[in-house]
């Protein structure tokens, strides 16, 4: 079945790309998973975002395990930022329903570029 084969190829391609990016940079990989689920598999954006969390959970567990085996994970530091982030994410999602503006998104993008500059200069 050509359609089934195409779907399998898409699923595999998205998995390999996102896993690679995730382990290379210590990120979830949502930046590739969400748009690719939409583009290649026709997910709507809500399903793509939700499904990307299931993907990232597996990817992050695999990534954390491989780096932990190499003794690169600082567990105290992980808890120090990860646990308050859990509380923060709940607040963030609530806030999203109240304020979402293009200006805010652009401001956040500028902030990310500023962080990138600091990292390079450090």
């Amino acid at each position: 079945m050509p359609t089934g084969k195409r779907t399998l190829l898409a699923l595999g391609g998205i998995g390999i790309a996102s896993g690679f990016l995730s382990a290379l940079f210590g990120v979830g990989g949502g930046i590739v998973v969400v748009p690719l689920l939409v583009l290649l598999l026709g997910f709507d954006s809500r399903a793509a975002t939700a499904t990307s969390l299931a993907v990232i959970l597996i990817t992050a567990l695999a990534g954390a395990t491989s780096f932990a085996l190499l003794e690169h994970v600082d567990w105290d530091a992980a808890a120090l930022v990860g646990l308050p982030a859990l509380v923060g994410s709940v607040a963030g999602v609530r806030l999203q329903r109240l304020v979402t503006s293009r200006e805010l998104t652009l401001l956040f993008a500028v902030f990310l570029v500023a962080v990138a500059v600091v990292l390079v200069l450090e």
Partner: protein
Amino acid sequence: MTATTVTLALVLGFGAGALSGLFGVGGGVLFVPTLALVVGLSQLGAQATSLAAMIPVVAFGAWQQHRAGNVRWREGIAVGVVSIIGVTGGAALATSLDEELLRNLFAGFLVIVAAQLVWSARRP
């Protein structure tokens, strides 16, 4: 770690979670700079630790989305399981790269994330 570092890490962790919820960007983009610049981990250590730090946030998010009936588990598990192959390659590359090169590549990745945000915020 000094008390100041701990406090700052807690505040920035909360902020990273809030921003990820607000903009739909994964926490890793903010965890890595916090762990590298504030906690003082190496770039590789910050990235490895970021993956561990995001697990509770992502697990909770996935559970909430599951309850809302939005997760397509068959596809999600398929992509997630295949991603382990990519993880192996990415981890091998990350551990073989020079610290400064890895940090600069990460900075480049941040700029791409920023560009993607701007693109997604363009006028409809």
